[in-house]
């Protein structure tokens, strides 16, 4: 979206902004231009010329922050109707996300409200990096950000997020709703072990982490290389000393081979390369098994989970549409879509066997504060042996 279309939206306070038009007003036009002319030289000249003219003339979209806040926290009975009315004057929403689950939800949302979504996907760290860098550069194009709880907690610390007061949060489990309400948990990433059913017999499956010290697991264990959040939380649950002792023993006796990325690790389990992986997301083996692969998930107590969250940007250019999306994701309809894709949702009425009383949660605040310590510990114990 360009500054001019944004300025056209009524109901927003707009700072006068010299729109020095880029030759293309949107990407589609740009592509057409490419296809028709492929005349890069001309365009490059224009760019240089414009660059010279407008050095120093940065124009920022000045959507009133108050308006975002007002819409997000309004509690009146006509809340929904107001949002829908206001959304009509907006121009779709831009969503930064790190999650494959969101694609189907976005499609359903567009179908329901007729509001277009512009998704931008990257890894969780890259999403956070782009948010913070854009905000520092006074660029506010994104409306909704989806990310792991610790990353969105970091965005909260960066003062980029807007708290949303919606009655729908009453239907969610408490871990999905932090006190500051600047993000909301939409699903739970539950770490489970996964094993290859042709390489591991049912009878030898471990029941507790202690069982993995048995030499029968020599050369058969794998782990994701960046799961220090899981590891830190697990140690506090098992007891620091006992937990560390168990893992030192496992590594010394059997070794744990670390793999970069949960999907690689899952693929490796499915192919037999890693007979038993300690940390995949619960939906990883389920989705692969649905295709017929010899893989099964295996929760080992204490099972650890971390919310995946959605947040509204404080300076969202399309706040009403964004809030509608926010509420759609945590509504029963939105949650059902994700449940259908093997995700553990946060909606109280949609049950899941993994979401039981013994489930332990990564504390996002602690995960941020302890990041360096947990990382060093994980590296020392597991990666660098």
């Amino acid at each position, binding site marked *: 979206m360009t500054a001019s279309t944004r300025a056209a939206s009524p109901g927003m306070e707009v700072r006068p902004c010299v729109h*020095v038009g*880029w030759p293309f007003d949107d*990407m589609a036009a*740009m*592509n057409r231009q*490419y296809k028709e002319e492929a005349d890069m030289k001309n365009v490059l000249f224009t*760019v240089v010329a*414009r*660059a010279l003219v*407008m*050095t120093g*003339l*940065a*124009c920022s979209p000045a959507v009133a922050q108050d308006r975002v806040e007002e819409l997000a926290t309004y509690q009146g009975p006509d809340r929904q109707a107001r949002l829908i009315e206001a959304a009509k004057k907006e121009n779709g929403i831009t969503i930064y996300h790190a999650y*494959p689950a969101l694609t189907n939800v976005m499609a359903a949302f567009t179908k329901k409200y007729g509001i277009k979504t*512009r998704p*931008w*996907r*990257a*890894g969780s*760290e*890259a999403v956070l*990096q*782009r948010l913070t*860098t*854009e905000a*520092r*550069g006074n*660029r506010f*194009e994104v409306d909704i950000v989806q990310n792991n709880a*610790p990353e969105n907690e*970091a965005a909260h*610390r960066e*003062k980029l997020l807007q708290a949303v007061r919606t009655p729908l949060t009453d239907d969610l489990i408490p871990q999905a709703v932090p006190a500051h309400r600047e993000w909301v948990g939409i699903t739970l990433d539950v770490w489970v072990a996964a094993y290859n059913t042709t390489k591991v017999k049912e009878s030898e499956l471990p029941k507790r982490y202690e069982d993995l010290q048995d030499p029968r697991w020599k050369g058969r264990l794998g782990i994701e*290389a*960046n799961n220090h959040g899981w590891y830190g939380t697990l140690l506090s649950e098992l007891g620091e000393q006992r937990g560390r002792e168990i893992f030192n023993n496992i590594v010394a006796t059997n070794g744990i*081979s*670390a*793999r*970069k*990325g*949960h*999907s*690689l690790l899952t*693929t490796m389990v*499915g*192919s*037999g*390369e890693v007979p038993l992986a300690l940390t995949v997301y619960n939906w*990883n083996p389920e989705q*692969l098994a649905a*295709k*017929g*692969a010899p893989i099964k998930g295996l929760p080992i107590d204490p099972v650890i989970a971390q919310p995946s969250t959605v947040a509204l940007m404080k300076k969202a250019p399309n706040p009403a549409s964004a809030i509608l999306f926010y509420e759609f994701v945590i509504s029963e309809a939105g949650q059902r879509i994700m449940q259908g894709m093997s995700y553990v949702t946060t909606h109280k009425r949609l049950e899941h066997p993994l979401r039981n009383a013994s489930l332990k949660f990564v504390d996002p605040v602690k995960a*941020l504060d302890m*990041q*360096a310590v947990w*990382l060093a510990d994980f590296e020392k114990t597991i*990666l660098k*042996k």
Partner: protein
Amino acid sequence: MGTTWDARMGELRSAGPSGNGWRFLNTQWLVIGVCLAAVAYLALMPLGFLVWQSFLTPDSAEAAARYTLGNYATAYGSAETLRLLGNSLVFAGGTAAFAFLVGGSLAWMNERTNTPFKRLFFALSIVPLIIPGIMFTISWILLGSPKIGLLNLLLQRWFGTEYVFLNVYSMWGMIWVEGLHYSPMAFLMMTAAFRSMDPSLEESAMMSGASIFQIFWRITLKLTWPAIFASLLILFVRAIEAFEVPALLGIPVGIHVFTSAIYQAVHQYPSQVGLASAYGTTLLLITTGGIYLQSRLTGRGSRYATVTGKGFRPRVVDLGPWRYVTAGIFIVYFLLIVLLPFLVLLWSSLQRYYSVPSMEALGQVGLDAYRFLWSHPTIIDSVWNSLLLAFASATIVMLLTSVVCWIVVKTRLPGRWLLDNIASLPLVFPGLVLGLAVMVFYLNFNIGIYGTLWIMLVVYVTRFMPYGMRYNSTSMLQIHKELEESAQMSGADWFTTFRRILLPLLKPGLLAGWIYVFIVSIRELSASILLYSPGNEVVSIVIWELWENGQFVELSALGVVFILALLALVMLAQYMGRRFGVKEI
């Protein structure tokens, strides 16, 4: 040419603004000025960012950035860094040597000998480069892992033993995979060098009774020494900066390299860009050292110029019966290195999930993955965007660096090796730091390219400029100055000489470099992922996304299509080059 330049500079200076010295302010100065400004702008901006950041603490809402030396203390204050650097040096040294050996010998066989069917092998030699890094590495896991590696399983069944023949999870495995993956880089560079070689020296040696080996060792290699050095240098530096192979093959067995530390630093909150930059300075120093050495090596006039005013017609060495041996080597290379990983991808793309080939799995073969690709919402647009970007960046990089290389190689401008160095440094900027530098810059200096394809073009040109420099300077060194001089004697101005004499003679290097930059632009991910925007996805992002989603089978299908399509493009480029380039035999 050097003296001409100096004379002109002198003339210009003495003439002053009112004199007729201004007549030199014509196309020559315009072209040179624009190119110099472009290189300085593209390379110095991220360099400045990197150095500046390395002295800053992380910036967050809670604690603003302040100046510090702490990043350097953290980075270089521990023995751990030295250990990582040691691993990196072994890995990069091994990779460079191995990749050069493979790529260089293939290039020699292809360009300088009468090996049968060699024309076919040109495009095939480039295939390993075309396969996306993740896919190439994984297909080698599927081939050479001790547990499920097909080669191991096959050999074990053959000999009826449990012995593990190959283990890709080792330093040797890493060198093997990375070396094979980048051997086309040496292949392209050496091809260009061999193509522009005057065969008269080899012929004289042969007349004097030297054997083929002696000719190769004492004439061919010596004459192409700048190209050899450039290949080794760029392979070495690139391998130090490599991330995928060490992450997929090294981490599982506890082999960590320097880039893991950089990766770890930026993937935190608050992002330790400063620390990553401090690590990055080591890579900058290594590169600077290498470029300086190269400038010393090639700074002594026209020792390596083989394209001269004399009738120039490259001729090949007759290998006699040995030509069947070299053809055999080509075929083995093709089967082992090109076909095997390709077949693994093809096999996997026909399955519903990857499983070791068996009769049972054969029953599940289907085209679902290809159907998925066909119906993928963004794939057509991203392919189009990638092709545009790759075409534009390859063309801009090669033309821009041809002018810069002319200055570096053909003039005696003081400090010209620094110019070479500046243009070469982007090679070692960690991709994410480069992406971030460009992002921060264009957010604050808003000329409307942020959020468009243009910003990615800027990054690609910056990132791949160093390769253009090496390809062009190698070819430029081979062109003797007498050719330019006679053009000028005949009244041609600089621009005409450059366009009509130099560029056509540079064509082997230009084409080789163009192909290389084209392919690596399509694969670029680490900077693209930060800078692409909704609606202008590129292919590497789609690949990454499939990978993140665990859609390995669909990814394999994309890999297969990718290889076939790029292979066709490379063959087309080769055909065009032959059609309009220097005459070959």
